[in-house]
């Protein structure tokens, strides 16, 4: 037997294919007779569509057909993960820049592109709302028709939903009050693999290839829209080439399916990167916080008004707003709070999940408030956090799941790693911040494990491996249960026709939810193994124990393969086990269920700022995550470092810029910068705290989002420490920092 792979950094399953170029991503799939789809869009945000003239385009070489809204069922079908508000194509009017008006279907991508340019769309630009203020103005045009929300009292406004969370009572007596407004920009996911899908309809039913995070939600969506039994809708989900929340929910798959049904041929749509920018983004926001502290730094209250600008369709954005703001006050003992959070529609790219799910936005505001208070009270950033951080078992939101980790250990370790307390070199400054994100609140993951005759194992798990390395963790878990190496385990995912149900790949849930489901399936196989061993030996199953991948029978130890060989006999066969983890809805909980765990992170920086250019130089960037148990320490570090670098993007350089007509001005890689090797901190260190206090296998918790949660406030605090200049709007571009420095000098 091996020593066990859990807890070791076994290299990524699927790694070989990724380094030799043979990994098959969506765009690498070639099907016989495949048609190519190009969406026709307008360089305008809001327009009434007066006419669509396809007469020239449809006769161009290779054009199979052009699908306009008039071809689709009326009223146009709509879909969405919560609100069914997204139409297949712009329904009479475009409601954001890049919303597709019609679709050209041709024999090649070139031909489809050429024909798309020949489609003549007559339109009249109409006013839209692109900012929070504009969307909330008295006479603001409505982004969505009230008929889409028939029983909603807010339907005649652009407010999709308002959430209120409140506990204690806000009393400013004897408190020092800090009161500021913070803004967080629109940023885009920029997965290096652009979005896309392939659909095909034949006698076996509908097949959709899409690198989605939630294959089973896509299956259900297609099943509902096309009135097909689930069994006749097969979703094949190639591993996404990066997703980060952007590939959770269906976007163009329903339209493609409709085209596939119409043409009888496989139809493929691959968006350009520019089109991908117009398909998904992070929710931008403005957060006004009034906070009260005692002179010793004790937090008394936060009064939060949080306005999140979501796009023209709801997607999952309201959930982002609800979930992030529920924990807006962060990992602290907050005795009194009032949080009012609004999801506000606008004529912009529909915002959706993006790593951190709204927490980077709220943490930007609340953590910056902690620093504002510390400066007023002449404490330091570490002291004020130490004074208020919830200890294990203490409430964060009273009555809900209490602090589930020794969070102060992460805080102290990060402080140590950044050299807190030792004077920094001349011109340098330090900042530190903490954050928690709620893990999944509900969920259902099912797994099947087959123990084959020779002792090797196949795991069926519907989690999408989008870079987080889910397959590796699953293989490790199963390998240890059966005393084999990771190379003796294969993990099958990405096919709803073969692999049992998994609700979704999101919220850093998979190690905990699917991990436990796999453990349960392994236990199911163990039960069968015990019976088999009992049969062979003539003993009771209760006399058999399976430990460390070995079968123990009254002091004697047998390998699993031996038991299988003797027990299954000449006809061979295998043992099949199933496992289910269900976290049911709790209708009384504001989020529909309590968080299964909290993802806690502490981030700290040491920086200097170039006074001539405003450029921030990061000397050291450290993160510490409270992970419960690192099942694969290498992968955990990879996730933390990656999240940290991604966090530098929205902290320092990334923002989608709109013109006053709502058009994105920096579409694409030339004008929208994400971090490169040259933006790397001079030193980047990531560590974990392991107390085995999580609900997942071996006491693990989810980890993939932690290090992006409080990058921005820690960085801004370090910039403030280095320069004395406090900035409350992201990103901290050289221009913004330089301007602030100049203003500071002038003052």
């Amino acid at each position, binding site marked *: 037997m091996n020593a066990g792979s859990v807890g070791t*950094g076994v*290299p*990524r399953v*699927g*790694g*070989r*294919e*990724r*380094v*030799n*170029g*043979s*990994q*098959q*991503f969506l*765009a*690498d799939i*070639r099907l016989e007779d495949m048609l190519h789809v190009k969406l026709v869009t307008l360089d305008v945000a809001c327009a009434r569509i007066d006419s669509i003239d396809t007469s020239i385009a449809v006769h161009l070489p290779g054009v199979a057909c052009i699908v306009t809204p008039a071809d689709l069922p009326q009223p146009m079908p709509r879909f969405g993960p919560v609100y069914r508000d997204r139409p297949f194509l712009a329904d009479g009017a475009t409601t954001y820049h890049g919303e597709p008006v019609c679709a050209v279907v041709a024999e090649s991508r*070139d031909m489809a592109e050429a024909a798309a340019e020949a489609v003549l769309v007559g339109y009249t630009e109409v006013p839209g709302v692109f900012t929070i203020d504009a969307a909330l103005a008295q006479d603001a045009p409505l982004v969505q028709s009230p008929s889409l929300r028939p029983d909603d009292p807010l339907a005649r406004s652009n407010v999709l939903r308002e959430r209120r969370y409140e506990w204690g009572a806000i009393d400013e007596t004897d408190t020092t009050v800090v009161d500021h407004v913070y803004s967080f920009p629109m940023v885009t*996911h*920029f*997965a*290096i*693999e*652009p979005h896309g899908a392939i659909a095909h309809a034949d006698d076996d039913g509908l097949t959709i290839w899409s690198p989605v995070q939630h294959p089973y939600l896509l299956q259900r969506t297609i099943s509902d829209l096309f009135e097909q039994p689930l069994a006749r809708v097969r979703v094949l989900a190639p*591993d*996404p*080439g*990066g*997703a*980060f929340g952007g590939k959770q929910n269906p976007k163009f798959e329903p339209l493609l399916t409709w085209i596939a049904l119409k043409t009888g041929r496989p139809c493929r749509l691959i968006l*350009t*990167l520019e089109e991908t920018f117009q398909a998904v983004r992070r929710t931008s926001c403005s957060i006004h916080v009034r906070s009260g502290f005692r002179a010793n730094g004790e937090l008394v209250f936060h009064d939060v008004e949080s306005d999140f600008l979501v796009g023209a369709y709801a997607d999952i954005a309201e959930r982002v707003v609800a979930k992030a703001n529920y924990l807006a006050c962060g990992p602290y003992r907050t005795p009194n709070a009032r949080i009012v959070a609004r999801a506000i529609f606008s004529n912009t790219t529909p915002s959706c999940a993006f790593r951190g799910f709204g927490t980077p936005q709220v943490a930007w505001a609340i953590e910056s408030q902690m620093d504002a208070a510390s400066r007023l009270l002449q404490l330091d950033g570490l002291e004020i956090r130490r004074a208020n951080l919830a200890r294990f078992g203490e409430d964060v939101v009273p009555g809900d799941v209490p602090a589930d980790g020794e969070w102060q250990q992460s805080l102290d370790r990060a402080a140590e790693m950044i050299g807190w307390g030792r004077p920094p070199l001349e011109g340098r400054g330090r900042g530190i911040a903490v954050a928690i994100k709620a893990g999944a609140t509900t969920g259902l993951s099912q797994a099947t494990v087959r123990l084959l005759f020779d002792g090797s194992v196949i795991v069926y798990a519907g989690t999408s491996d*989008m*870079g*987080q*390395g889910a397959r590796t963790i699953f293989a490790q878990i199963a390998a240890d249960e059966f005393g084999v190496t990771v190379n003796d385990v294969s993990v099958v995912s990405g096919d709803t026709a073969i692999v049992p149900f998994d609700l979704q790949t999101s919220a850093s849930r998979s190690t905990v939810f699917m991990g436990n489901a796999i453990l349960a399936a392994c236990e199911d196989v163990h039960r069968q193994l015990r019976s088999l061993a009992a049969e062979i030996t003539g003993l009771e199953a209760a006399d058999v124990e399976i430990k460390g991948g070995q079968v123990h029978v009254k002091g004697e130890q047998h390998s699993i393969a031996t038991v299988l060989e003797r027990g299954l006999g000449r006809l061979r066969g295998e043992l099949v086990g199933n496992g289910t983890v269900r976290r049911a809805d709790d209708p009384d909980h504001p989020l529909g269920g309590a968080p299964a765990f909290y993802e806690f992170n502490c981030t700290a920086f040491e920086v200097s700022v170039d006074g001539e250019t405003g450029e921030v130089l990061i000397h050291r960037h450290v993160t510490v995550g409270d992970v419960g148990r690192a099942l694969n320490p*290498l*992968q955990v*570090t*990879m996730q933390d*470092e*990656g*999240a*940290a*670098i*991604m966090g530098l993007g929205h902290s320092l350089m990334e923002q989608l810029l709109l013109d006053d007509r709502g058009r994105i001005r920096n579409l*694409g*890689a*030339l004008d929208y910068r*994400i*971090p*490169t*090797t*040259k933006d*790397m901190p001079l030193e*980047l260190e990531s560590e974990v705290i392991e107390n085995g206090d999580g609900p997942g296998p071996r006491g693990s918790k989810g980890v993939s989002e932690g290090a992006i949660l409080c990058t921005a406030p820690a960085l801004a605090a370090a910039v403030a420490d280095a320069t004395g200049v406090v900035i409350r709007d992201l990103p901290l571009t050289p221009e913004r920092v330089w301007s602030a420095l100049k203003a500071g000098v002038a003052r």
Partner: protein
Amino acid sequence: MSSRRLVTLSVNGREHEFDVLVHRPLLEVLREDLGLTGAKECCAVGECGACTVLVDGLTVNSCLMLAVEADNRQITTIEGLTPGESLSPLQDSFLAHGAVQCGFCIPGMIVSAQFLLDSNPSPTASEINEGLAGNLCRCGGYKRMLRAVEAITEPEA
């Protein structure tokens, strides 16, 4: 038709003749006509590096080079940098150092890194950083990529 031209591409040591449309990017010909899908398309404007290949030993964004420009030149893709069933030392090092997350940028990244090592077997840390700066990785795996390259540099004589 005047918009087509006959070209000879030498790809990974094998010669192929094509009658190509003059506006077709090399990337498209590699991926669609030769089935060499290791080079990826992301930005299509030469910024992300996912489509990086070697042309006459130099790194090129194959989304920006036309197939006709590659006529009679030696092209090496990620498939050509992979020695048969095994992996190159660089590929092994990427895996061992945990440099691979989603993997979409990796073929281009490895081509760039291999070019760097071939032209400068003992690069400094900042030369490695510079050498990979044209390849975007949204998973943010840069630190491990830099280490993976550093680990197989030849010590300075």
